[in-house]
């Protein structure tokens, strides 16, 4: 028996076609009509898993069809792998990076920066016609292979495995060593000793011990960023100037400003204008790094802000949002709870600290752009000491009016596992709201054990 797939309803086609086109980095434009065609004809054939009515995706028949930008983020996700392949065919340079970095230098150096999740997505979607089960089996096989090749398990081993195996045309691996993911060091070593020597490795040395207040640490890190851009230039054959970096910072600041404004609009009303997934995907556009195309992200973000403002003004509630939901703020890297199933249990996710930390602060636009960017990166609230990070998190919890906090992290994420408890202890001590720690199994499709705990937490709220 075939899997049941949802279809975007023709009923909403007209409104969608009235919405704006998407403009991409290379200047190309995709019209709303072309997007609609892709989402209703080509996409379901290529990626049936993304249209599957499955408990894992909340058994929903559709996304929020009356919110065109929700469909557009779906489109950007579905076309991501093809777009990366086309970018490579055009000679574009692609870098594999990890969390905690600003992508401004990569944009300046005409390089697409992909975090581990996007590298995995690129590889996953090279294969067409898979349903959800087949997609997960493929992912699981790859994680096992990576474990045997590298002898450690962590969330980003898949990325190194793809690159070593030559599955993906990545030009550069650019981790900030000692920033955030302790496992990055293992990945770097595995790559250094792997058979594929064609991919350049740049080690950017991130100063340890939270030294954002020390000018020498900022200058030292700025020097490292200059080296990073220099190495990216060696790959692309071009020369990136300070003016290029400043232009990139201005562009990314525009995204960060819009993302912040969109989030504040969302928080300003008691009726959630979107469900949790749409909120995350739209606010997440603010960093302009989620779809491998800065201009495309910016154009959808601009339009999303207009739609959300209209919904807030008219008191429109997002698709599948429960009445008077319990508001949950999520902490931790890389993973989140199953938002659809949590909404079915009466909750909504009102924020997440990780990428929000990058989005909610701006880079100074006057003066040395390398120094400014170094200072900004060292000041990311998410990367600060436990007490500082917790204080910033408390501010976000208050702004979002969250009723409870769940800290979720991947199994094997030593960094987040180590700080989860002390951060929640500070939050409990200062504002006394309920908190919960959840560890995510790296391999699973079914998360019944996890969902059981999340549901119990929602009931407790």
């Amino acid at each position, binding site marked *: 028996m075939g899997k049941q797939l949802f279809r975007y309803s023709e009923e909403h086609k007209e409104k969608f076609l009235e919405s704006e086109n998407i403009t991409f980095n290379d200047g190309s434009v995709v019209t709303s009509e072309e997007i609609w065609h892709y989402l209703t004809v080509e996409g379901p054939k290529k990626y049936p898993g993304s249209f599957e009515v499955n408990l894992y995706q909340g058994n929903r028949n559709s996304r929020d069809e009356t919110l065109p930008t929700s469909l557009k983020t779906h489109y950007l996700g579905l076309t991501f792998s093809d777009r990366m392949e086309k970018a490579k065919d055009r000679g574009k340079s692609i870098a594999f990076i990890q969390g905690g970095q600003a992508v401004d230098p990569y944009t300046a150096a005409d390089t697409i920066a992909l975090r581990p999740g996007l590298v995995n997505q690129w590889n996953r979607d090279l294969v067409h016609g898979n349903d959800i089960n087949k997609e997960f089996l493929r992912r699981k096989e790859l994680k096992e292979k990576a474990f045997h090749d590298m002898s450690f398990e962590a969330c980003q081993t898949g990325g190194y495995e793809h690159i070593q195996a030559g599955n993906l045309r990545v030009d550069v691996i650019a981790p900030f060593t000692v920033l955030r993911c302790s496992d990055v060091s293992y990945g770097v070593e595995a790559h250094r000793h792997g058979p594929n020597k064609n991919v350049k490795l740049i080690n950017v040395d991130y100063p340890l011990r939270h030294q954002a207040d020390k000018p020498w640490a900022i200058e030292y890190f700025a020097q490292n960023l200059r080296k990073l851009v220099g190495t990216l230039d060696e790959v692309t054959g071009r020369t990136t100037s300070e003016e290029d970096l400043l232009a990139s910072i201005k562009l990314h600041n525009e995204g960060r400003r819009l993302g912040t404004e969109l989030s504040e609009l969302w928080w300003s009303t008691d009726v959630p204008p979107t469900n949790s997934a749409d909120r995350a995907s739209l606010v997440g556009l603010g960093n302009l790094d989620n779809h491998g195309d800065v201009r495309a992200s910016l154009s959808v973000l601009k339009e999303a802000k207009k739609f959300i403002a209209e919904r807030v003004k008219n008191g429109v509630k997002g698709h599948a949002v429960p009445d008077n939901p319990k508001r949950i703020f999520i902490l931790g890297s890389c993973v989140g709870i199953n938002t659809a199933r949590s909404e079915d249990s009466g909750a909504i996710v009102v924020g997440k600290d990780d990428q929000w930390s990058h989005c909610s602060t701006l880079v100074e636009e006057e003066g040395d752009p390398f120094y400014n960017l170094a200072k900004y990166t060292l000041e990311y609230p998410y990367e600060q000491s436990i007490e500082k990070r917790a204080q910033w998190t408390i501010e976000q919890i208050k702004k979002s009016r969250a009723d409870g906090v769940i800290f979720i992290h991947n199994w094997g994420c030593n960094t987040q596992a180590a700080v989860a408890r002390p951060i929640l202890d500070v939050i409990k001590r200062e504002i006394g709201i*309920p908190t919960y*720690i959840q*560890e995510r199994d790296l391999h699973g499709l079914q998360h*019944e054990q996890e969902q*059981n*705990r999340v549901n*119990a937490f929602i*009931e*407790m709220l």
Partner: protein
Amino acid sequence: MSLSENFFAGVDVGSLAAKAVILKDGEIFATGLLKSGVNSVESGLSALNLALDAAGLKKEDLTYIVGTGYGRVSAPYANKAVTEITCHAKGANYLHPTVRTIIDMGGQDCKAIRIDENGAVVDFAMNDKCAAGTGRFLEVMAEVFKVKLEDLGAIALSATDTVPMSSTCTVFAESETISLIARGEKPENILNGIHHSIANRIAGLFSRVGITSDVFFSGGVAKNSGMKSAIEQALKVTIVRPEIDPQLIGALGAAVLARSFAKKEGLWAA
């Protein structure tokens, strides 16, 4: 049968057992308990039918049913589904309103739950995707020693020594136990070690949620006196055990919630 008698049911389908409790006018009226099979819908219905038969009722006589346990996601017979954490809290509060802390050890998980005077959950912690400290773990150990599950606790209490267990993984602990037997360690001392190692894991859960008296022990493992004693030593508390079968507490709490939901939804007036 008069409808004014107001019957409410709770059905708890766990990994090892399915349980049902029927309340009549707020009092426990009938119960049903059986081993759960692979079909959780059938298991839940069978437990409910057992309780209905014992009560001399039909399903239509029930005003409201709440499903809980892992089988709650496929319980078409229930009006509502609630997690077993909330249900154990309500069940314990129903039997002993002074209870503030619950240790629940079921077939595949164990929970540390702190509750308030109304039986609402204040905080909780559970074992992490591992069968250590659960009914299934003890079942495996009973098979290794070729003794009945219900005798494990008494054997452990007769120990003269405690053999430390280095592994709490169910499979690895089984092989470790076999090698300890081969080394000549006495079965009662090994079992005592197993009980203490589980008790220490439970104590670890309480480091997160805290302990306030009275402390209540529910779930199938609560029948094991050796486990009760080991936990009392590890937590330095006196444990209250329910007067009814401790496996029924989740279903009881579900029935209590059924009564309260029915009232909220206007299906019943106290």
